[in-house]
């Protein structure tokens, strides 16, 4: 009903304008990606940038990923033990559900949502500042494909490092769960081990990594577009940074639904 009212209230002219704006933005994004995925002018410089981006976007994110994963793993385990487990259920159920949640959703989707905030705003603000201070123009004047030089190493760097972040996140979540057993004495460590090992399907690990690759592309390319296409000054850079985080988060959530359906 609410949708119906919304549709009636929105004038067709504005609907058309909105559609035109979305299509224009999408078209510009595709054109930018076309420029980005070209052969770098100088491979030596590309490798240098690629390694730098892997360190800046990936390695520098390991700390926050481990910290959040540890506590989320611990909290999920406590919640499962306290709220789900009952005398009617096997004792390993808390460990089993913790593993499944960490592996299937947290280590890929939720972790990527967190990274969209950290990495996405970093990329958008860096490129946006380069745009408004004419550093991108300087590259263009030199005859360098600025999109390829700046964006390609970021995308490939994040795609390369993402599987490691997923694996570290899953592992740290399990460590967090064990911490509840050994430090918090919420449950017996043997029960937790039994649950973690119960009906393990290795494909879930691959599924998590495959999903994270799609998310890594979204996290790096969408903020890159937002930052690269900034026009104006510091206010616009800030806006681009916010847009980058919001848009990439929404796209991750949407694509998560499709990818989960596709890969399950």
């Amino acid at each position, binding site marked *: 009903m609410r949708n119906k009212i919304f549709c009636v209230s929105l004038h067709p002219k504005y609907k058309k304008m909105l559609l035109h704006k979305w299509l224009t933005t999408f078209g510009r994004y595709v054109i930018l990606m076309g420029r980005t995925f070209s052969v770098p*002018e*100088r491979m*030596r*410089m590309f490798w240098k940038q690629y390694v730098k981006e892997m360190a800046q976007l990936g390695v520098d994110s390991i700390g926050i990923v481990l910290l959040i994963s540890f506590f989320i793993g611990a909290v999920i385990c406590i919640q499962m033990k306290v709220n789900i487990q009952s005398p009617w259920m096997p004792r390993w159920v808390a460990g089993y559900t913790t593993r499944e949640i960490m592996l299937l959703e947290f280590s890929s989707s939720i972790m990527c949502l967190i990274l969209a905030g950290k990495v996405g705003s970093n990329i958008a603000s860096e490129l946006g*500042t380069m745009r408004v*201070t*004419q*550093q991108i*123009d*300087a590259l*263009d*004047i*030199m*005859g*360098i494909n600025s999109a390829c030089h700046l964006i390609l190493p970021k995308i490939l760097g994040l795609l390369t490092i993402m599987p490691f972040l997923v694996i570290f996140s899953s592992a740290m979540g399990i460590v967090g769960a064990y911490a509840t057993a050994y430090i918090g004495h919420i449950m017996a460590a043997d029960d937790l081990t039994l649950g973690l090992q119960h009906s393990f399907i290795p494909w879930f690990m691959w599924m998590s990594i495959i999903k994270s690759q799609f998310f890594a592309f979204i996290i790096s390319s969408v903020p890159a577009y937002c930052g690269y296409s900034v026009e104006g000054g510091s206010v616009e850079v800030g806006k681009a940074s916010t847009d980058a985080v919001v848009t990439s988060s929404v796209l991750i959530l949407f694509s998560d639904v499709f990818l989960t359906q596709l890969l399950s």
Partner: protein
Amino acid sequence: MIEVKHLYKAFGEKEVLKDINTVFENGKTNLIIGQSGSGKTVLMKNLVGLLDPTSGQVLYDGRDFVAMSKKEKVFMRREMGMIFQSAALFDSLTVLENVMFPLDMFSNMNLRERQQRAMDCLDRVNLVGAEKKFPGEISGGMQKRVAIARAIVMNPKYLFCDEPNSGLDPKTSLVIDDLLHSITQEFQITTIINTHDMNSVMGIGENIIFIYEGQKEWQGVSSEIMGSTNHRLTDFIFASDLLKEMRAAITSQKPMG
């Protein structure tokens, strides 16, 4: 030499450049002057290809830049150097790395040769000793000099400067002007400077083009400005009372009171 023929540029309905015809000569400091919003920066952006003109030709030693393919433009741009209003140095690179950057991208020199060439250019702009600093750690004037060193490191045939003196004190502006002038003569390059700094106009203006509301209003040399009868030019040049007084003194051949 850069020749501009019947250049028009419009943004939607608004015509910003109207029928610009001019020649920027080799080995001279060519100045584009005009009020803010007159179209100077748009003209420069059209010259270097950051904007595409609506119509017209930009001929670099007879080669039409507008009609070139993207690939040809990329090669053509390697003959250009540009100094931006904000210097546009790469924040993440040191001064030396900034100057070396074009060499890293396009030259086949080894690391030692590239460093030596970059150091020679830094020496040319009196910046030896600052090579390990980052752009954020040096003054505005030094940043402009680094930008000049980066622009000349590839031995460009054409040098573009967009308001190189903006935000600088008069003394540093003179240093930058002298540097640009001497580099132009030393390397016999075609230098185009976009400015509204009157010290630059009077000091190094060997070929001055005055743009008014998107049209070329006047062209000449600095010595001709004082006696110009173009009221739009004189209104622009002698906007301050001090300059008006100077002009009155010069035209009446009386010492200033």
